[in-house]
């Protein structure tokens, strides 16, 4: 009788992460851990704490495994993808003299560091992206931000960066550093970002 109860207890244990058809594990991030929502078979499960796992059973339903995966088990099972994780991108934010296409002096100095960073990466690609704030004329802002981005690109090339790895765009006001209401000036948003991947 006792043995039968013990057997039933094992059978009743929800699917363990290691035996599931599909497994998802939320990882810690720089700003906390964010969240993932797993949907399947008409069901959904939100997970928002780091190292939590979701195991999808044979019916396709996402579940929290009763017996979760330890951090060591996760790292071991996913060792190949974790070992192959590319280096995080580096973003340098550059500001300009008011209304001009000239970098401020501190920005010029940091650009030199960026060139070293590009050299340091295998298979780099570099985005030079102009941004505006939400004040003033949209077309003029876009034009100025593009010219600024092109000026930065030209500086990088003049310092030996292969132009083939550089792409130049403008995000206009769509990707602000500091979100604002429309028509609000915000100098911190009037910038060029150089992103090295």
């Amino acid at each position: 009788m006792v043995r039968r109860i013990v057997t039933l207890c094992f059978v009743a244990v929800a699917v363990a992460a290691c035996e599931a058809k599909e497994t998802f594990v939320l990882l810690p991030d720089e700003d906390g851990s964010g969240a993932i929502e797993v949907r399947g078979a008409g069901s959904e499960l939100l997970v928002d704490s780091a190292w939590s796992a979701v195991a999808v059973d044979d019916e396709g339903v996402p579940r929290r495994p009763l017996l979760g995966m330890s951090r060591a088990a996760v790292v071991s099972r996913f060792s190949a993808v974790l070992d192959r994780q590319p280096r995080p991108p580096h973003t340098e934010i550059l500001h300009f003299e008011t209304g001009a296409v000239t970098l401020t002096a501190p920005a010029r100095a940091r650009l030199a560091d960026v060139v070293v960073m590009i050299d340091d990466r295998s298979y780099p690609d570099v985005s030079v992206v102009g941004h505006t704030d939400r004040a003033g004329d949209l077309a003029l802002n876009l034009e100025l931000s593009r010219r600024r981005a092109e000026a930065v690109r030209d500086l990088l090339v003049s310092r030996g960066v292969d132009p083939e790895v550089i792409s130049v765009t403008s995000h206009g006001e769509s990707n602000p550093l500091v979100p604002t209401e429309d028509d609000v000036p915000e100098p911190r948003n009037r910038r060029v970002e150089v992103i090295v991947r």
Partner: protein
Amino acid sequence: MLSRLIFELVCRSKAAAPFLIIAAGFQLMTPLPADAADWIGRVKTLEGIVYVERDGSRDILSAGDRVMLGDWLETDGSGSVGIAFRDNTIISIGPRTRLLLREYAFAPADDQLGFALDLVRGTLLYISGIIAKLLPDAVEVRTPASTVAVRGTRFLAAVEPES
């Protein structure tokens, strides 16, 4: 109490070089030129054998190659690869994995944002980038049984192959 998982060791073989031979009746893809405007990401890390399928051709992928929207990536038992996309989204896949780069749009000034992957089998690491930051709802990772939505984050996924 739990049976221990048996984890396979990843073979640390050298990456294969891309083949550029064109033979009669059978054409291999050439690597995507860097100035082709349509590329969406670049291979940063690679071990073992990794294939890319594009426009009906299948070729060996190398570190430094660029990938395009619609590419299928497939690894054998030794392969793994890491890719960084234009918007800083990062993924890597492990051995015995098959993945489709199903959707990619990154033009914030034109309100074009989208990122979608289909993980058919294998393992995946996903780290969110600017697309997820600007529009979390624009990101989707699909597996045979599930759809995963993200809120600016990183996660791992494992899909057992159909037996």
